[in-house]
């Protein structure tokens, strides 16, 4: 930030603080929480145009769900079971080190039945009975493709627009651009399903702020006593004592400020107050005890168990209600190199009902129109079997050349599908959409022009979409 601009901002903070009484400094926080891009004044005011969505819930399906067994119906494959993938389809594309040395590439059609659903007639596999019920709300993207072929770079690419770690995550960009709508909660919250799919490692940096200030990083809420690290007072130290502690602290810091008028001191006082409010607001948020039984029935039996994907979907809705800007769930376990039929069934049992319930729930509460929901992983899976193909069993390797995701809610056309792949779901034949395009489109729904959300670092004006990306207007409502 320009020194003067920063100074301007700090002075604004200070006058707010002076106006506030009793050390609450609420108004000051409003300015603290505003996106810095806005305060920077170097890019046009944000949002750049009226947004369709005010927030995003991104349901990240980590590991690479099989488009062939969920969304991309390929009836012609049934006749080709076991036939070696034709070279004309594979076209010499690179494979991972796990199957590159395989002696054959037998075609493995999905063993799951597909049917059309809803007025829109979307094709979905039998693995997704609940998603099928909200098919008319979905925009199914069938022509996503990515550059990365392994998990870490592929997830990093989806999260930051670049395969190597170091750039800000999408949630950080959005927090930086649009700030928060809630003074008591971070703008970017992350929830990771626990207890399942533990074979894939995740990294904190996937929601890191890269070169953006760390205040824009995603805050991971954990299940258990301390949803936010260090949230609880030490054992034996009560909330009442903490209130007095903070008053004493503010008094001492004010004494300091009188002697040394460094605006950082006032900011710190305000941040301690926000910390105190988080001590109340976060447990209130994460405590599902007051949810009616109907909620748990909607989201399914897992939803009563803290840390599950289903429970996290309820939390996502609660975060959305409270104005959190970017809510991201991570659910692992989609990396089915072997035993795919059995494993994907279990995976869908954990995720299908809660994902669909979230759509239903948001719609019932009138939040779906202003919330963009994103469902998808980091790449797809191969049509050929990794390992031995049998009548009932097969595995699939990573496949970056085409895969499916879905979007729903604010700004997105409902009940459509977009893009097409060849008969093998191996190559895209119509309307390819890359990761940058998805990012550009998500930002567009939030009223942000992806070419104008920038941050200067190491001499360059960086963007989430780097120098790429186009908004896919055909899917916008």
């Amino acid at each position, binding site marked *: 930030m*320009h020194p*003067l601009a*920063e*100074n301007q901002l*700090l002075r604004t903070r200070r006058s707010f603080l002076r106006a506030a009484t009793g050390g609450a400094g609420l108004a000051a926080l409003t300015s603290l929480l505003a996106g810095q891009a806005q305060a920077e004044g170097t*890019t046009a005011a944000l949002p750049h145009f009226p947004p369709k969505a005010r927030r995003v819930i991104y349901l990240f399906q980590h590991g690479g769900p099989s488009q062939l067994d969920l969304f991309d119906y390929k009836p012609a494959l049934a006749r080709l079971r076991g036939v070696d993938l034709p070279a004309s389809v594979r076209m010499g594309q*690179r494979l*991972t*080190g*796990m199957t590159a*040395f*395989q002696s054959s590439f037998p075609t493995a059609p999905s063993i799951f039945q597909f049917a059309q659903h809803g007025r829109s007639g979307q094709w979905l596999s039998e693995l997704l009975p609940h998603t099928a019920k909200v098919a008319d709300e979905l925009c199914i993207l069938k022509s996503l493709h990515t550059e990365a*072929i*392994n998990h*870490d770079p592929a997830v990093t690419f989806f999260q930051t627009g670049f395969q190597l*770690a170091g750039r800000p995550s999408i949630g950080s960009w959005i927090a930086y651009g649009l700030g928060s709508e809630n003074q008591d909660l971070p703008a970017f919250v992350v929830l990771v399903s*626990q207890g399942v799919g533990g*074979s*894939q*490692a*995740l*990294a*904190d*940096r996937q929601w*890191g702020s890269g070169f953006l*200030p*760390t205040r824009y990083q995603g805050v991971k809420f*954990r299940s258990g006593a301390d949803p936010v*690290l*260090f949230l609880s*007072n*030490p*054992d*034996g*130290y*009560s909330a009442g*004592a903490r209130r*007095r*502690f903070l008053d*004493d*602290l503010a008094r*001492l*810091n004010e*004494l*300091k400020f009188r*002697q*040394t*008028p460094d*605006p*950082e*001191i006032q900011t710190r*006082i305000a*941040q301690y107050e926000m*910390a105190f409010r*988080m001590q109340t607001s976060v447990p209130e948020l994460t405590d599902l005890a007051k949810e009616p039984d109907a909620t748990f029935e909607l989201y399914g039996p897992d939803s009563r168990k803290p840390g599950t994907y289903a429970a996290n979907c309820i939390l996502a809705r609660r975060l959305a209600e409270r104005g959190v800007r970017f809510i991201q769930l991570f659910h692992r376990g989609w990396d089915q190199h072997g035993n795919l039929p059995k494993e994907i069934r279990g995976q869908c049992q954990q995720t299908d009902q809660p994902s669909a319930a979230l759509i239903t729930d948001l719609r019932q509460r009138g939040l779906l129109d202003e919330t963009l929901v994103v469902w998808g992983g980091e790449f797809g899976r191969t049509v050929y079997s990794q390992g031995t193909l049998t009548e009932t069993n097969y595995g699939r390797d*990573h496949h970056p050349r085409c895969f499916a995701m879905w979007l729903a809610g604010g700004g997105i056309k409902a009940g459509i599908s977009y893009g097409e792949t060849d008969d093998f779901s191996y190559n895209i034949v119509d309307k390819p959409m890359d990761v940058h395009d998805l990012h550009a489109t998500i930002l567009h729904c939030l009223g942000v022009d992806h*070419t*104008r959300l920038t941050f200067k670092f*190491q*001499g360059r004006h960086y963007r989430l979409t780097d120098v790429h990306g186009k908004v896919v207007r055909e899917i916008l409502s």
Partner: protein
Amino acid sequence: MRVWFAALVAAPLCAAPALEFNRDVRPILSDKCFACHGPDAAAKGIPLRLDQEAAAKSAARGRPAILPGDPENSELIRRIMHPRRGLRMPPPHSGVALTAAEIETLRVWIAQGAPWQKHWSFLPPRRPEPPQVNQAGWVRNPIDAFVLARLERENLAPSPEAPRETLLRRVSLDLTGLPPTLAELDAFLRDQSPEAYAHAVDRLLASPHFGERMAARWLDAARYADTNGYQFDGERSMWRWRDWVIDAFNRNQPFDQFTLEQIAGDLLPGATLEQRIATGFNRNHRANTEDGIIPEEYAVEYVVDRVETTSTVFLGLTLGCARCHNHKYDPFTQQEFYRLFAYFNNVPEHGRAMKYGNSPPLVAAPTREQQEARETLARRMQKIERELAAEAEALARAQRAWESSLAAAPAQFWSPAIGLDAALPLDAPGAEQAEGSLSFVPGRLGQAARFDGASLLAVPGAAQFDIDDRFTLSLWLYPEASPHGALVTRMSDRPEGKGFGLYARQGRLHFHLTSNYVNDALRVDTQPVLQPNRWHHVAVTYTGSKMAEGVALYLDGRRVDFQVEMETLYRPFRNAGARFAEPLRLAGGGGKENRFRGLLDEVRVYARVLPEEELKALALGMPVHQLAAKPAARRTEIENRVLRWQFLATAAPAPIRQAWQEWQTLREQADQLERTFPTVMVMAERPQPRDTFFLMRGQYHTPGEKVTPGVPEIFPPLPPGAPNNRLGFARWLVAPDNPLLARVAVNRYWQMLFGVGLVKTAEDFGSQGEWPSHPDLLDWLATEYMRTGWDTKALLKTMVTSATYRQASQAAPELVQRDPENRLLARGPRFRLPAEMVRDQALRAAGILTPRLGGPSVKPYQPDGLWKDLIMQDMEYVQSTGSDLYRRSLYTFWKRTVAPPMLVNFDAANREACVVRENRTNTPLQALNLMNDVTFVEAARLIAQRMLREAGPAPADRLRYGFRLVLSRSPSAAELEALGGSLAFHRDHFAGRPEEARRYVRQGDSRPDPALPLPDLAAYTAVASLVLNLDEAVTKE
């Protein structure tokens, strides 16, 4: 900068004195125009370049962009002011726009004749004369003259000197990362001599904690971590490099040498171990161990990382921008990027890294203590050798007598005893579990087991080795058909299964260790050497190196060459917590199709690498009495040796037998000791240089033409006589005509002390970097650094003893408003402490900080399950205990994917890639961290104990004492009153809640002092916590 100009010079531009191109104009052109009209213009098909004077002023294509003296007829002005949006520059899609002030600057500059300058940082620093100033009495050294001259221009006066307590805390934190102890503080306050401060600075510079403090920032720049990064993020070991850095700072190694050794210490003539360790700098990058990766892709990323890190740290340049295209702002072509790339592209490495531990090339790097222990063992062995030599004649006599007695004694065979894991004589059915039918028939030594091609023997519990263990397998075999099948294995009993095994394969000797047959295995094969229907002795040794070079195969006592079918193991058998419970099998393992047909005899398994002579001896297969029966002159050397060994082990006089036993034990101890040596990944050169290619769009699989190593054109060439390799590059970096190294280095020291560098963009001295706030001061410091032989301590001393540094940091609101970042330096620095100091200070004040330097990284308190939430099952955060809980934060284990949360909360660099700019935020998570993290709650209780035990009975004294422990000053009356109020509240609070008080003071591993009254201890703990949470406590003033 432009803002400075407008706001601080505060004069209308048209009346301004001559504009300076580098300061006033280049930043505008660079930021707003160069992306298209810059070094990469041609590649985009854009004819006009504005980064080159001749092109910008050329009339070759019609009206010149810049017509000196005539803004109205300059195309540039016409276009930036064009009334039609579509024709106005920069175009809307560029995302950048010119402000009115910028347009005016460009107009005035052209009106003034458009004088051009080469980019400032590419010109060598010249040593400026310190300027004349009015308030000369304020100047303590030349730094102050430069600073004051600027202040006087701005009509500002410097601030008075900081209070002495403040100054000592400031300089102690800056030079050692720790606040002063009360003893140090009191001694300083008592010392009224004019040299008191200089003495304190000398003391701090001599402290071993100086090296730790300096290393903390160097580790950020060098992206040091204790794990590999990427997805799996397994552990690596680079702490010996980290300790080398601490040591280098402590012995004040000249910075040019420090640089040279880290870039190319391995290539220095007669490189020492320490110089090789230094090159770990460029192996600290992330390394991918994932199963499915394409190794070539990551091999490229590692080299790119080296180029980017090296150019950021030593040149302050963003050369990584030229990886995919010519640099958009600075005069570096993509070609030049790959020429630099070539210097770092000759490491004998593989794109896929070891999943656990270090990846080659690496060196064993014993610590000083370990080196001493090894020497001690060697000395003890030599002593025994001397003793045996002294007895040589008597022993020879005794041995001859023993030899002649042997014929009458029962047959004995020599075999080594140390490290024996399993000995299977196969003379009769034993504890082994037989599968299928087998018989015992006369063998090579006694009986042997005969396998029919379907049977096997299993030995549960034997040979429980993993891929990082050393071992030896030795046996006799007699193939009854074409030599084929499993000899001795520990692997799953299916083809291509996991485990290890020694095989005969169509007459070849075959050995493998397999984690995954397709892509994670080590397999070697000899030529056909085994013959049917005769006895062979075979053996294999494996060092645990995970590489084929760690394997040796022996046939009938001779080493045999082998071909490598697969080179490297990455994942252990125990991967991801897997149990690997296969038994040792004879004649089986690897499936039914791999059973051996024939006789096996005398299978021996050792948990060590047997030396060649011992394997030769085993292959003799002759009882000692037969050896003895041979006339001495006709015995081979090894036969003589076996007799000697057997004599020393069984028949020599008791003291000699003991000495021999001890010698062997010592040898094994030395071997084991060496296996505990930490290793460090280092740089090395391949014997056959690897070709480097231009990579189109920066992608590994689209190579273009071959390139040779070289430095960018804009800079001076390699120094005369320097080889054109990494060493030559390193010599070029530290050559006196490199315009950047010294500037970039002194700027980082300045940033460390003042919070912001003289060049704010510490990572970018290029065109998009910021113009220095004090260009002459920067050059004076740079030339001073070189003039003093790159003496880092001397330079820091000059900085911290300047009047500029010694100013008070409190300032009037008007000054804060006018200069919020303190770039003019009219006051002392005031900014939040770096993450590691926030914690280290609390531990120091609590009196519990472990002062020990170096060693493996430690795992202090961390909330439960943080790793488990995110990572695979087989890496657990096992919290350290005892004094390791209280080491300096520099030693905290840094796992890249789940970095230490407290350090991350306080803006520590991420250690994923090089970071040289310090980052500071102010967040509610920091507040929660300081209030509730057990680290700080325990520290508060320990401070409370000190207040209660060390400060007398009066509450005011106790409060003053605790306050001073953290802040190095006494509280004011108002502060004391506030503290007293808090204490009274908390005492009342806890007096009524003894159970809560008891729980509150029991945080952390240390026990509360039972002698202290509970409500008092709890109340003082709360007040100590209050002090630790003060803005001032986490701030350097």
